[in-house]
């Protein structure tokens, strides 16, 4: 294998699995260390910079970081990264003075369609640079789907108000209750750029017999959730069936339990394990006595003269073809009718752009989605950018934020006369953490604690009040315990071959058998010859040559605990623990020079 180029910004970034997996690349271990130190405001600001909505995401994020967390490969469960984010938000001091101040206006006007996470992220990045940002939303308050679709018992209004206010307070003009019905008209208002962050606002229909006749008791999930959110709907029948297996279905069933549904069931086509909902959301639903029935395909709504009485399902089973693709085929069992008073349909969301006229210069693909560049988020109209669910279909808040950062950078570059396709490289800081012979600036003593559970409100009380937040969040003691579980993967093991005397001290001390000194070879062969062979090609091997015996040092990054014992036991300082911080490029965060392109 070729020696590893550790100066490439991506190499160490990938070792910080959580940060690499986060669409916004939040420096997770950095803020977890700050929480452990009691520096909650600092931890909050790191999050605020990366992901814009720490308090909201700390309750609702899809947490791509957690399945990636190295801890999950070392013991049973990853670090509760998401809930630690909430700790930073819950225990911070007033941080208003630390927010950017609205800069002097630069005379450029930006229109943002939709007041959800994508648009707000764009506005937050651009407003401090002097842009005049105008956010349009059909609802009276900002937040978009965060406010209308996520139940209050998961995300209280106060948290949304606080974090949207931080952004709107940057001198952003918010036009609530102002629905944009024509892009053409908006274009005519001569904004310098338009950002479309209007989400995926349409719930998918379930067109099976009986749908029209029994319509009074069949509701589209996201529309129903938003009606509940605005207080237009306050009750539901006793027996409720929720169709669908995603997170919206989980929100629907738990909301129904709080509005009078005593017999609420989730019924899904697929198997329980393949459901789209996050495991923890399924867990929460089950905890609230909501059974999840699987392999049942709805084939008809049953009604008595227009009054819904039940849903008939066909029983199916999963079969896998030669390519491993799953097909649901009838199992041969008789159809089953499940009685109910109301049905909530949560079988997916769709984009809809009826307000974009054909002659606006926006091209659409065969799935009726706008053609959007995945890096610059530009559409085929150079002035119009897309982001969030409006760009590539339904994803989640953290992806919307990441899109927002990139789109804001494009808008800023475009309006500064630069090429938006030329993306600046992130800034990387790597510095030794050595404080003494055997002392490090981070706590390298690995905690063996299992993941701490987040305390929940008593179920009886929680089910009575739709606004009572179910999760109470970690207290400081639990937060500290959980923070200690973080392995500090951003403190990297850095090897300097010319200093190595090949004494084997690092090999002997490494608790995870990560380090091997051996003859070089092709990767597949080398992986077999490691002290602990590693078949996981997605985890890098760190290879260094230049040793006196002609061997190479190979470190398998996979399950390294970053305990620093290799560096502690190294007599010559050939191993060092160095903290790697990467500053993702946001609009205005780097000098704007074309000369940087190949830096």
């Amino acid at each position, binding site marked *: 294998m070729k020696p590893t180029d550790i100066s490439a910004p991506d190499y160490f970034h990938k070792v910080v699995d959580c940060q690499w997996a986060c669409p916004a690349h939040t420096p997770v271990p950095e803020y977890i260390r700050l929480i452990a130190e009691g520096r909650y405001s600092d931890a909050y600001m790191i999050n605020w910079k990366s992901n814009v909505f720490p308090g909201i995401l700390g309750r609702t994020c899809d947490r791509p970081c957690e399945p990636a967390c190295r801890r999950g*490969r*070392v*013991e049973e469960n990853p670090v509760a990264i998401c809930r630690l984010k909430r700790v930073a938000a819950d225990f911070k001091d007033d941080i208003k003075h630390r927010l950017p101040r609205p800069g002097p206006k630069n005379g450029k006007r930006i229109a943002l369609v939709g007041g959800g996470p994508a648009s707000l992220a764009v506005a937050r990045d651009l407003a401090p640079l002097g842009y005049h940002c105008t956010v349009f939303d059909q609802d009276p308050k900002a937040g978009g789907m965060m406010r209308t679709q996520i139940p209050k018992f998961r995300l209280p209004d106060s948290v949304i108000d606080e974090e949207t206010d931080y952004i709107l307070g940057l001198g952003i003009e918010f036009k609530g209750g102002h629905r944009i019905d024509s892009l053409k008209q908006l274009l005519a208002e001569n904004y310098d750029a338009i950002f479309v962050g209007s989400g995926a606002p349409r719930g998918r229909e379930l067109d099976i017999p009986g749908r029209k006749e029994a319509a009074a008791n069949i509701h589209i999930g996201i529309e129903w959730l938003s009606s509940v959110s605005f207080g237009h709907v306050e009750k539901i029948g006793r027996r409720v069936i929720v169709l669908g297996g995603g997170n919206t279905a989980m929100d629907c069933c738990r909301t129904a339990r709080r509005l009078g549904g005593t017999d609420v069931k989730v019924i899904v086509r697929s198997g329980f394990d393949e459901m789209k909902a996050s495991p923890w959301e399924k867990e929460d639903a089950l905890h609230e006595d909501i059974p999840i029935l699987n392999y049942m395909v709805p084939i008809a709504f049953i009604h008595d003269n227009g009054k819904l009485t039940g849903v008939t399902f066909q029983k199916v089973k999963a079969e896998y073809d030669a390519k491993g693709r799953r097909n649901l085929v009838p199992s041969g069992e008789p159809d089953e009718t499940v009685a109910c008073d109301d049905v909530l349909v949560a079988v997916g969301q769709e984009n809809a752009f009826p307000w974009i006229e054909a002659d606006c210069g926006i091209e659409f693909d065969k799935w009726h989605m706008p053609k959007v560049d995945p890096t610059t988020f530009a559409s085929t109209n150079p002035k119009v950018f897309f982001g969030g669910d409006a760009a590539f279909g339904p994803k989640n808040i953290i992806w919307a934020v990441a899109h927002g950062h990139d789109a804001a950078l494009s808008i800023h570059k475009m309006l500064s006369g630069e090429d938006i396709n030329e993306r600046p490289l992130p800034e990387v800081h790597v510095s030794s953490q050595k404080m003494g012979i*055997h002392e490090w600036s981070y706590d*390298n*003593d*690995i905690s*063996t604690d299992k993941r701490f559970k987040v305390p929940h409100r008593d179920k009886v009380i929680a089910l009575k009040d739709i606004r009572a937040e179910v999760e109470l969040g970690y207290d400081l003691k639990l937060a500290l315990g959980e923070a200690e579980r973080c392995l500090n993967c951003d403190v990297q093991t850095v090897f300097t071959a010319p200093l190595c*005397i*090949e*004494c*084997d*001290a690092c*090999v*002997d*001390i490494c*608790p*995870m*058998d*990560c380090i091997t000194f051996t003859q070089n070879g092709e990767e597949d062969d080398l992986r077999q010859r490691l002290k*602990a*062979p*590693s078949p996981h090609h997605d985890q890098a091997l760190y290879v260094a040559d230049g040793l*006196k*015996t002609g061997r190479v040092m190979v470190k398998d990054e996979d*399950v390294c*605990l970053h*305990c620093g*014992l290799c560096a*502690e*036991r*190294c*007599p*010559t300082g050939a191993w060092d623990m160095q903290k790697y911080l990467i500053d993702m490029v946001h609009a205005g965060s780097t000098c704007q020079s074309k000369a940087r392109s190949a830096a």
Partner: protein
Amino acid sequence: MTYIAKPKFHHPGLKKNELGYTHRDYEGKISTLCAGCGHDSITASIIEACFELSIEPHRVAKISGIGCSSKTPDYFLGNSHGFNSVHGRMPSVLTGANLANRDLIYLGVSGDGDSASIGFGQFAHSIRRGVNMTYIVENNGVYGLTKGQFSATADRGSKSKKGVVNTDNAIDLVAIALQLGATFVARSFSGDKTQLVPLIAAAIQHKGASFIDVISPCIAFNNHAGSTKSFDYVREHNDAVNRLDVLVGREPIHVDYAPGTVQVVEQHDGSRIALRKLDADYDAHDRLGAMTFLQKHAAKGQIVTGLLYVDPEAEDLHAHLNTVDAPLNRLDEKALCPGSAALDKINASLR
């Protein structure tokens, strides 16, 4: 010195031996020796050998004297018996323990000061008596704990860290062990585990006095230019006569070396060693030849390593003395006090 304990987590794919243990289960406390000490690699090799042999930790007694080397039993086999004896007295304590209970595996760990100076006589007598043990000397040529004076194994002409030349002749413990009749004699290097681990495993299986001299560079006081026990010097002057693979249990023998170069040695207890010759002329069954070979190469400044001598038909002290099979603590009253008739019989035989 490292202040934190080695984390309990281990690699999820770690190999298990016949007892279901991983090599981590054979560890002891975290080392308090200087960073990079060769002794830590010997510790790791003992751990690896015991793991490979699927030894039950409670069947091992590790006995040592005083010195850096003698601290190491604390760092391996945390669930074994241990005795940290007076300086240089490891061989006597080990002999006594062995006479009292022959069922345990005896691991004597010592250093060049402990065995070649203060305990030289003890070393000699335990070897000549043929105590069934594995006697490991962690040999760095200096007194590390007292800041790096030459020890008795430092080569004449080698230089101290401050540049002082050693004018005394060196004691070659391997030569002495051969001369005193050790039935398993080897030399190795802490920086070469592929050679050292099988040597330790074979020594443990050998029934008789096994002696291994392991050159173990002292990073703090004896790893400089002019030293003959530094990493660089040993790597440059290492003349390995053979390599071995210990064949454990009923696993089939996979020998992929050229025919004629591998010799399978079956020991008394049925265990087997595959000896891969590196030096075609070297015969590991010839005590006299070994001694000559050793002296010749030492004169050239070369360090001969490998299995230097093995007597597969070795006997131990218990056989010489015709002692009782059972450990003393398992002898019941009837065996210990056979009664006056038995006493009369003994007395009569002496009249």
